[in-house]
């Protein structure tokens, strides 16, 4: 039998797939699946090393919206061509675009997400406030001030602060976007010292310092999720996937009190909420691409979504990939965040997410190889500013220098 080695990320949906893949193996007895499940950061390092050195360890890789266009362009991934039964057009256009390069699809989305505002309806109501479905940051700040009550163990707003391009910078990029900023101008010059950045970061630092929980500088998705489920956060802007966790009474003490809104905006709605997908791709070095493609087709198909719905429950299906999912009544009944999520995803456009024109794709990142380390360096400065160790201006200045160094080294300009 052919053995397929699949590298995946350890998110819930992937793990579910791993469990359900026995159905695939039953249907294809000549294919055996071997799983390598890793945490996001490790997975990224791992597959990058492999794909770049043509190591050939994996036949299928789970990669994100960041890597796909870069690698596809370099010819490191096999183009995916599905037969009609796959219904390529059912894929949400934002997803398809984000996973393509020059019109060729290099990875099939397994699940997608955007970001949105999750808040405690009870607290907002008690404070005598309201939350529109498209709030502004100014409004959010007011609400935060009202519901902030640390003596009772409730903090007005929880936001990411841990340094990392996928951590605090994912959120901060959307904030900067909506403030009208961007990472690079058309000459690839980093724009970190521009006014939108200054305003956005100052606002962020101010907001979290006043109404955030202690230790924000080390919080990322998981930390905040824990806080939120314990009822310690009044509001939270983060990945839509969180919605299913915080409204799950098994995990969350406040499951019945959560409500959803679109990510807040400031000067422009562009890029205010991010777009991300975990997708399956086949490295060029794989010798079993036919079988691999077969599996990908199975895993990202509507049938698979239905299978999950039947076997595990409609509240747990991988979302954000296909229009048909959101048209499904079973799903809609099970997921009260469905509408908000779809709206968020639809409103995101990786190709045009900044007020000024940008040379890069990606909403909460810039899809260039240098971005990872720039993201970490900048993220460190932002967390430093958040921790009150340096002023926002200084942090941005240092960040700008770091970004400039990287870009210069990479030869974007002299």
């Amino acid at each position, binding site marked *: 039998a052919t053995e397929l080695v699949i590298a995946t990320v350890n998110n819930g949906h992937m793990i579910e797939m791993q469990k359900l893949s026995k159905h695939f193996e039953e249907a294809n007895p000549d294919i055996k699946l071997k799983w390598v499940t890793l945490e996001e*950061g490790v997975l990224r*390092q791992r597959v*990058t*090393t492999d794909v*770049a*050195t043509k190591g050939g360890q994996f036949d299928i890789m789970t990669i994100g919206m960041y890597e796909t266009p*870069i690698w596809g362009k*370099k010819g490191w991934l096999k183009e995916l061509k599905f037969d009609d039964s796959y219904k390529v057009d059912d894929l949400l256009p934002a997803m398809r675009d984000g996973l393509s390069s020059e019109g060729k699809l290099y990875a099939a989305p397994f699940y997608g997400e955007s970001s949105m505002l999750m808040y405690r309806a009870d607290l907002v109501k008690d404070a005598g406030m309201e939350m529109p479905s498209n709030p502004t940051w100014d409004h959010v700040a007011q609400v935060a001030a009202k519901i902030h009550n640390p003596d009772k163990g409730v903090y007005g707003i929880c936001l990411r602060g*841990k*340094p*990392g*391009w996928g*951590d605090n910078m994912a959120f901060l990029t959307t904030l900067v976007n909506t403030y009208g900023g961007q990472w690079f101008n058309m000459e690839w010059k980093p724009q970190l010292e521009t006014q939108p950045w200054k305003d956005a970061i100052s606002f962020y630092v101010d907001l979290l310092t006043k109404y955030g*929980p*202690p*230790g*924000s*500088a*080390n919080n990322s998705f998981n*930390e905040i999720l*824990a*806080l939120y489920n*314990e009822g*310690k956060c009044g509001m939270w802007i983060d990945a839509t996937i969180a919605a299913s966790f915080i409204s799950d009474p098994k995990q969350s003490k406040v499951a019945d009190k959560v409500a959803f809104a679109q990510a807040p905006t400031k000067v422009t709605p562009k890029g205010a909420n991010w777009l991300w997908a975990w997708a399956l791709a086949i490295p060029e070095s794989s010798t079993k691409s036919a079988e691999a493609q077969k599996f990908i087709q199975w895993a990202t198909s509507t049938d698979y979504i239905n299978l999950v719905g039947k076997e595990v429950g409609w509240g747990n299906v991988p979302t954000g990939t296909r229009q048909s999912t959101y048209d499904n009544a079973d799903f809609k009944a099970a997921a009260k965040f469905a509408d908000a999520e779809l709206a968020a995803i639809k409103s995101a456009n990786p190709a045009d997410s900044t007020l000024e024109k940008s040379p890069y794709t990606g909403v909460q990142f810039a899809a260039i*190889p*240098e971005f*990872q*380390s720039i993201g*970490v*360096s900048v*993220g*460190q*400065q932002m*967390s*430093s*500013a*958040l*921790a009150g*160790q*340096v002023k926002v201006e200084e*942090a941005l200045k*240092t960040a700008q*220098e*770091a970004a400039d*160094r*990287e870009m210069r*080294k*990479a*030869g974007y300009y002299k």
Partner: protein
Amino acid sequence: MAEHTRAGSRWLPRILMTPAVVTLFLWMIVPLVMTIYFSVIRYNLMQPDQTGFVGLMNYEFFMTDPDFWPAVWNTLVLLGSVVLITVFFGLAIALLINDPFPGQGFVRILLISPFFVMPTVNALLWKHMMMNPVYGVLAQIWTFFGLEPVNWLTDYPLFSIIIMVSWQWLPFACLIFMTALQSMDREQLEAAGMDGATYWQKLWYLYMPHMARSISVVIMIEVIFLLSIFAEIYTTTSGGPGNASTNLAFLIFKQAQLSFDVGVASAGALLAVVLANIVAVFLIRMIGKNLD
């Protein structure tokens, strides 16, 4: 040191050493040569098409990183503190449990257990369950005593890392000291007692010299390991806030696994080797004579 060579077997010691020396040599030389080579060329995994000899540019790039000197400093602080903490407390604990008492064996197990924890788990354990300012155990203790919980990772990032790493390496020191203490000669202690030595004087004049070799070994081994600590940092603070907890290894990690710039990472690695050598030479001056 006098020669105690087994007469008539001048070759035997060398033969016995050969496997270790040869394998280690191969293990060292091949990657080293490759690393040196990589460090002078342009080599980014993400841009395999861009190649060519660049001289010392990678070194320059690595060293002109504004985080470079702070990272060197942090590396040394981390190293020094953890070594001091583990050696001091390791000795104290080893001495404490050296003589028999009820449950000695069990206590010994409890004490060495933290070493069995994987570095990432260690980091997560401390970050989430111990040091989190909202729901961490330490925060609960602080609150219990009516104190404002400390915001460990934000306010004292490097110190927090030092605590985690020390917690992990303390058992190592304990373990080695424990076994070494057992070979302490009882009659020497008795003789010192007769000479009027108090416990502290025995500690200083007899235990310490006896333990000198073990202490040196612990220090050397820890130094080598601690120079390349990054999993704990990556997992907890990602080197931040700012560069407050960035060390050299993390800086290299950034280049190697976030930028995938093998050239710069190689240069950084070689600089780390240089730093390690400086530290080692310095140490061997101080403690080398204890080795025999």
